[in-house]
């Protein structure tokens, strides 16, 4: 695969929350508004890009037996960096995301990419992979967050957009609403894939 393919596969083919159905904990927990989803997504992208880069650079030095431990140390270091920087410069977002920032350490997308991709590929391909998957994750969270925000509080990017008599569907802001929205998005994506497959003549 070319570098471009490594980058773009994260947007559809292996789109993390929908295709791989990985990293669902932050996906369901913090997507009450589009902005929150995007903040979480960007924090995860930062960690993913740098952990991929460092794992890839160090892949020849890390003995196979201790690779998971080494990956976790690398990932955890970048998570702490994100946490400190966010607290110092984006305090309101830091307050909202709360415990889910440190929990990026255990996000299986990141360890999954380190183990399945970065430890076997060069640094440039790993950077492209991390950036692609990370941005795909960010977009997924932003879309899911925007849908929940639109239905749950009648706003989009915190600007009211619904008609005046619109009754906010508060259920969408609750955790069960996250599952419903995720399920509907998954169904929509599967439908698009099926239509595409039929058009292309591939069954």
């Amino acid at each position, binding site marked *: 695969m070319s570098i471009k393919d490594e980058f773009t596969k994260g947007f559809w083919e292996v789109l993390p929350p929908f295709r791989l159905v990985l990293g669902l904990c932050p996906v369901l927990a913090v997507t009450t508004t589009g902005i929150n989803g995007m903040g979480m997504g960007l924090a995860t992208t930062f960690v993913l890009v740098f952990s991929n880069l460092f794992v890839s650079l160090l892949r020849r030095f890390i003995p196979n037996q201790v690779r998971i431990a080494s990956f976790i140390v690398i990932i955890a270091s970048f998570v702490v960096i994100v946490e400190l920087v966010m607290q*110092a410069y984006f305090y309101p977002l830091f307050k909202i995301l709360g415990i889910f920032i440190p929990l990026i350490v255990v996000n299986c997308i990141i360890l999954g990419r380190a183990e399945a991709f970065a430890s076997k590929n060069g640094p440039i391909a790993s950077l492209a992979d991390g950036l692609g998957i990370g941005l795909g994750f960010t977009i997924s969270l932003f879309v899911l967050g925007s849908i929940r925000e639109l239905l749950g509080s009648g706003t989009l990017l915190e600007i009211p957009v619904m008609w005046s008599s619109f009754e906010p569907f508060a259920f969408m802001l609750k955790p069960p609403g996250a599952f419903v929205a995720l399920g509907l998005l998954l169904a929509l994506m599967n439908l698009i894939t099926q239509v595409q497959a039929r058009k292309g003549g591939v069954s």
Partner: protein
Amino acid sequence: MRDILKMITVLTLIGAASGMALSIIYEATKAPIEYQTIKFIKEPAVKKVLTGYDNDPILDRKKITIGEDERGRPIELIIFPAKKAGKTFAVALEGKGKGFAGLIGVMVGVSKDGKLLDIGITSHSETPGIGSRVAEASFTEKFKGLKAEAGVKIDSISGATYSSKGVIAAVNQAIGYVNNFKKEIF
């Protein structure tokens, strides 16, 4: 044996590099984090209790040492001064008092001539709807204009006696600081 040595070396090196990088970033973000915490948690209360200043009380904050804890480390108190034409005419500072459920933090504004300007609750974990009423203006307004002397008394909110007493204790603690450290504060 060589494998084990290599494992130990690699893990140690990665851990050491990570620790060094993190300590550098921790030092670099320490001051902005402190500022942000104060800005988002204390600033609303400071703005409420002080009026008529032309400086930034958050930026001009100063720390004074008010004693030592049991391990001999200094206990610091943050003072937010309100200045006009460069002269401090009032300060805001936080006192703590024991409420019904844990400590209640109260930001207290005291003018230089020894009057209470206003108070604002910064943190509490009182029962919502019952003890939490002490944060409402109808209660906090009762402190306005009182003399900043030890033993301030206010009628408690019925049904929220412990919470009210917690707030009063916090206000008295802040007043105590002002009176004991007047020179350092003003």
